[in-house]
């Protein structure tokens, strides 16, 4: 990591104001400071920032699971008991989160260290997503930095994509709120409204002071319009203590960030992470104040309230003496003591990195705050970050692949598997054996020249697991599709590496699901049993939510693809096309186009009428 002196654009104020960035100067001090930039190698970004950010997010998910089963933790985090159900329900429903920011100490010489997680109401988003990207493009065009530079930054594209995924079906209307009197908060919310609008959502703003409660228990905006989906730039710990806190659970409102984020936005998270992963290279030893283990921290540590904003009530202790402290109103809920991180001294500046996540996927860096040589926060934003790599390494929407994938199979939901099987037999297809999935569905397959048709129905609905963060429920998707009607609901393409493809989906922002593995016994034509096994990588297509896409890696292909099963009375020789009907085929077809490889999908509709995307797909 290098700190670079860069000539500011001569008209930088006008340029950032053109973007709508009004708070570049606060209290007479320059907040947006583009005289300095930080350069990283690709290895530093990928291995030292991006990977640890993803790993820490995974630890946070594990912590939420643990906390919801342990009342002592909920008490320790000072979560009001009356809100435990609200939090638990939001997690069990799989309420989506939008964004968060890890503050990391990183000097380019050792592992990045987590200072804290702004999981609930992070700001400085607009600067990171838009202003610094615009700076990068202009700085290259004006020769202020090298033309081969790039930036780890897909925040804007990810936000737009995720707004379409916050709820199924895609929400029509969404409210946004923050408190009056904060230009930074309002600027952040205005930017998010713009992203939501680009996702096709009817985005409405209301100040939190204008919100009311309707007689039926729902919250409403200043015009008495019911609020069903609400982004609130207002911390959960404050909401829990408002006079209308008792109305939260019964409001039928989906909140963004969801209530479960209250568990990870507390600095009380940090001692538990250290307890769960002691010695983790990206964590600092941290304990609750009063814990005897605090003695292990020695004479140098930082004392932080469980809940605070902008560094208030934080005390830096060096050599056993208070070196620095900030006053503030926080601390009633208790404190943590955290080992002191070594911040890099770059020309007398001590930058802290903000590693952004959107829907739990790392997707950008920004400078949340710099620290001057006295370790006091100041308002210079100094992290317009760039790195010399090929463009679009983090591009939207597709993982980098130019190789067209073959079709693996099509999933066709039917109410009566036996009746449908008989019908396909009448059509002249060879009928496969009926198989039962452990997650509640039952299927029979019809291989057709290297691909197959999978007829599927619900066998035991009680076995179907719900969707959960990072866990795609195949059974739930099939069940929901069947509830809309019989027919094809999923298109499945080949994979040679499902785990790698899942990572590619995650990096490209088109699906954040763990790869799914399963196996079962199958019967050969001679009656002998063999093992078949599969690994699946699921993708999400916000423009076509009812159309499922995933990749399937056959782990025992020699046992699955048997020529004897592919001889059909109707002489079918291959699957040649899949038909998708969409009002906007261009948008809906982006995902399959990317998965198939360029030029493999043709859409031919236009205007406002429905149109069809079709694609030759046999192997």
């Amino acid at each position, binding site marked *: 990591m290098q700190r670079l002196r860069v000539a500011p654009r001569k008209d930088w104020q006008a340029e950032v104001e053109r973007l709508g960035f009004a708070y570049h100067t606060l209290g007479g001090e320059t907040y947006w400071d583009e005289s300095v930039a930080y350069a990283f190698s690709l290895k530093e970004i990928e291995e030292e920032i991006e990977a640890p950010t993803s790993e820490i997010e995974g630890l946070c998910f594990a912590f939420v699971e643990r906390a919801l089963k342990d009342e002592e933790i909920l008490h320790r985090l000072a979560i009001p008991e009356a809100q435990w159900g609200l939090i638990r329900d939001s997690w069990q429903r799989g309420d989506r989160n939008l964004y968060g920011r890890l503050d990391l100490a990183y000097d380019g010489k050792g592992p990045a260290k987590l200072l804290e997680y702004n999981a609930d109401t992070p700001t400085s988003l607009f600067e990171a997503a838009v202003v610094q990207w615009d700076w990068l493009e202009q700085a290259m065009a004006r020769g202020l930095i090298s033309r081969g530079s790039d930036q780890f930054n897909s925040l804007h594209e990810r936000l737009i994509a995720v707004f379409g995924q916050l709820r199924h079906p895609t929400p029509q209307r969404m409210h946004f709120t923050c408190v009056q009197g904060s230009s930074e908060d309002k600027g952040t919310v205005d930017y998010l409204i713009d992203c939501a609008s680009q996702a096709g959502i009817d985005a409405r703003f209301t100040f939190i002071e204008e919100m009311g409660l309707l007689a039926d228990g729902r919250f409403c905006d200043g015009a008495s319009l019911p609020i069903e989906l609400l982004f609130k730039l207002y911390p959960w710990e404050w909401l829990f203590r408002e006079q209308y806190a008792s109305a939260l659970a019964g409001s039928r409102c989906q909140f963004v960030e969801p209530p479960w984020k209250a568990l990870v936005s507390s600095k009380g998270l940090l001692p538990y992470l250290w307890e769960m992963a002691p010695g983790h290279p990206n964590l600092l030893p941290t304990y609750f104040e009063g814990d005897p283990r605090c003695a292990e921290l020695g004479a140098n540590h930082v004392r932080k309230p469980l809940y605070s904003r902008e560094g208030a009530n934080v005390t830096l202790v060096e050599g056993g003496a208070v070196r620095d402290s900030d006053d503030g109103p926080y601390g009633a809920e208790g404190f943590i003591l955290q080992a002191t991180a070594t911040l890099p001294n770059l020309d007398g500046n001590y930058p802290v990195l903000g590693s952004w996540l959107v829907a739990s996927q790392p997707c950008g860096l920004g400078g949340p705050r710099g620290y001057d040589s006295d370790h006091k926060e100041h308002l210079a934003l100094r992290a317009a970050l760039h790195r010399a790599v090929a463009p679009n390494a983090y591009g939207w929407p597709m993982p980098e692949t130019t190789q067209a994938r073959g079709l693996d199979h099509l999933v066709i939901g039917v109410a009566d598997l036996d009746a449908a099987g008989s019908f396909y037999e009448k*059509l002249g297809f060879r009928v496969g054996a009926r198989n039962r999935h452990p997650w509640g569905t039952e299927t029979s397959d019809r291989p057709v020249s290297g691909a197959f048709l999978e007829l599927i129905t619900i066998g035991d609905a009680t076995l179907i697991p719900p969707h959960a963060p990072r866990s795609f429920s195949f059974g739930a998707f099939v069940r929901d599709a069947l509830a809309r009607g019989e027919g094809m609901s999923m298109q499945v393409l080949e994979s040679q590496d499902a785990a790698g493809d899942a990572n590619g989906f995650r990096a490209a922002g088109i699906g954040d699901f763990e790869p799914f593995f399963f196996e079962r016994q199958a019967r050969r034509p001679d009656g002998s049993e063999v093992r078949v096994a599969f690994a699946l990588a699921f993708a999400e297509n916000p423009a076509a939510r009812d159309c499922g896409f995933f990749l399937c890696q056959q782990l025992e292909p020699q046992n699955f693809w048997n020529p004897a099963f592919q001889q059909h009375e109707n002489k*079918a*020789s291959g699957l040649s*096309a*899949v038909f998708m009907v969409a*009002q*906007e085929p261009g948008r*809906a077809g982006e995902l399959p186009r990317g998965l198939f490889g360029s030029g493999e999908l043709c859409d031919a509709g236009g205007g406002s009428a*429905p149109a069809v995307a079709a694609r030759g797909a046999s192997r």
Partner: protein
Amino acid sequence: MTPGAASTMLDDDGRQEQAYFAGFAVTAPDLEPIRSRLAERDIAHHREGARLVVPAGAAFGCTIVFEQG
């Protein structure tokens, strides 16, 4: 494929807002035996140019198209 052709072949009335999979196409070297088979077994079907189409309404919600190949 034009919206009009899609509407005819796939039984689409244009009223469904969400994108959906309407069906698939299968190749076979000779369509005439398939046409005879469908007729003999009283399976609803119609010709669309060189294709044979079993409409979704007769095929568990999934249009099945046979084409030569």
